[in-house]
């Protein structure tokens, strides 16, 4: 009897470790697959079109008109109050994403600088309600495994970001990610070299019904992440940053 109890205890203790070793390892560098246009703006939005609320449709028309009139460069100052990161742009960025998977946390690094954190330790989103929590443009993400699929739930996007062209973060095909938005992502390893992420945005103030689309990624063997080489001490930096796009001639 005692032997059986020892065995049961041993199995109980060893199972989580064993089970954890059975989930796919998504670690690696992953390059999003441009569907062929070569234009970031076009392939960023090359997804099934969402049904948008009238107010968002109107806002999109204003943004489009402003862009045609030359408002194509973000001239908003980066202050300490600015949320760091922009989730939709990060997940579609042309440099590869670097994914590092551990049991309690999955880290997703973008082109340079900061990383996105997906908590796998069983926590919920309650810390986003705590005093002093700093809202990030990458949102607050918690994940779980459903079989071989990593399911990530993200919320607490900022109401506004420091971008005078798109004060609210734009999602592919004209949507928004903001303080009322909820996002579910499903990461699936198709094979060793291919990964898909299916995004479902939900926000009653933006979408008539949830907006779902999928990005495909390919593994980049032995890829090395970039680091921004911008030199803000360079007096020409600001000119390049803010003045590199020629304003179209006005009618």
């Amino acid at each position, binding site marked *: 009897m005692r032997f059986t109890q020892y065995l049961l205890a041993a199995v109980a203790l*060893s199972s989580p470790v064993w089970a954890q070793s059975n989930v796919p390892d998504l670690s690696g560098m992953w390059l999003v697959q441009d569907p062929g246009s070569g234009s970031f703006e076009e392939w960023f939005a090359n997804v099934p079109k969402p049904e948008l609320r009238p107010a968002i449709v109107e806002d999109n028309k204003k943004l489009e008109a402003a862009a045609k009139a030359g408002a194509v460069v973000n001239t908003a100052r980066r202050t300490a109050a600015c949320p760091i990161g922009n989730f939709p742009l990060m997940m579609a960025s042309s440099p590869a994403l670097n994914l590092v998977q551990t049991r309690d946390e999955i880290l997703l690094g973008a082109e340079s600088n900061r990383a996105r954190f997906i908590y796998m330790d069983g926590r919920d989103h309650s810390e986003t309600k*705590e005093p002093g929590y700093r809202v990030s443009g990458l949102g607050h993400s918690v994940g779980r495994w459903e079989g071989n699929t990593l399911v990530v739930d993200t919320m607490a996007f900022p109401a506004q970001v420091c971008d005078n062209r798109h004060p609210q973060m734009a999602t592919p095909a004209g949507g928004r990610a903001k303080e009322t938005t909820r996002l579910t992502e499903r990461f699936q390893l198709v094979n060793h070299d291919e990964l898909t992420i299916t995004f479902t945005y939900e926000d009653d103030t933006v979408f008539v019904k949830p907006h779902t689309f999928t990005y495909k990624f390919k593994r980049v063997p032995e890829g090395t*992440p970039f*680091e921004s080489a*911008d030199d803000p001490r360079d007096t020409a930096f600001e000119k390049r940053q803010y003045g590199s796009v020629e304003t179209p001639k006005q009618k």
Partner: protein
Amino acid sequence: MKTFFIATSFLVGTLGWAQTPARPDITGYWELGFDSASVPPASLVQPVTPAIEREQMRHDAEWIRYCVPLGMPYILSQSPLDIRQSPTVTAMVSRVPSSTRYVFTDGRKHPEKEDLDPTSNGHSIGRWEGDAFVVDTIGFNDRGVSRLPGGGVRTPDSHLTERYRLMDNGNRLSVTLTWEDPKVFQKPHTYEYRYYRIPKITGARVLPCDTGDQERAKFLMSAFGN
């Protein structure tokens, strides 16, 4: 009979798990304490005059002022430090302005010099020597905080070797750093940090930084007449 099945399942599970070499897992959130640094003075090739020291301090203050990635080893001296170890890569994240640091353990070598893109963290590859995770780094640029604890500076020619080792049943982490650079050090410069494990990071994962804050800029650079 039931016992037999349980025993069989356990043995199969154990054998399967045993196929993966057991390695220490340094994954976690780590904090430096007031008693965490043991740093001897470095043996420098060139004596540091007040003018040289002032220039080194100005260099570092300027990069801090502009919120650029501050790089290695500065990010290790700022806690909490988030370390994520997977079989093929280990990531390190600091809260100060910095790039995520990646240590590749997929068997790759450093790129050839002409293919190396220098960064503030350098290019790092890791291997296990017993219970020590040994990290070899080259390919630094001259950006970020370049002054090193104990004296000397990080340069594009610097070679860094680190040894990460768990202590105290995994509750402490020893990191020994050894810098080699014949133009800077007479002999390898070695020092050690010991981190305490903390359960989680609370508060901001990224500290705010505002390049446009003139008061902050004035404060940081005033000592150098800028």
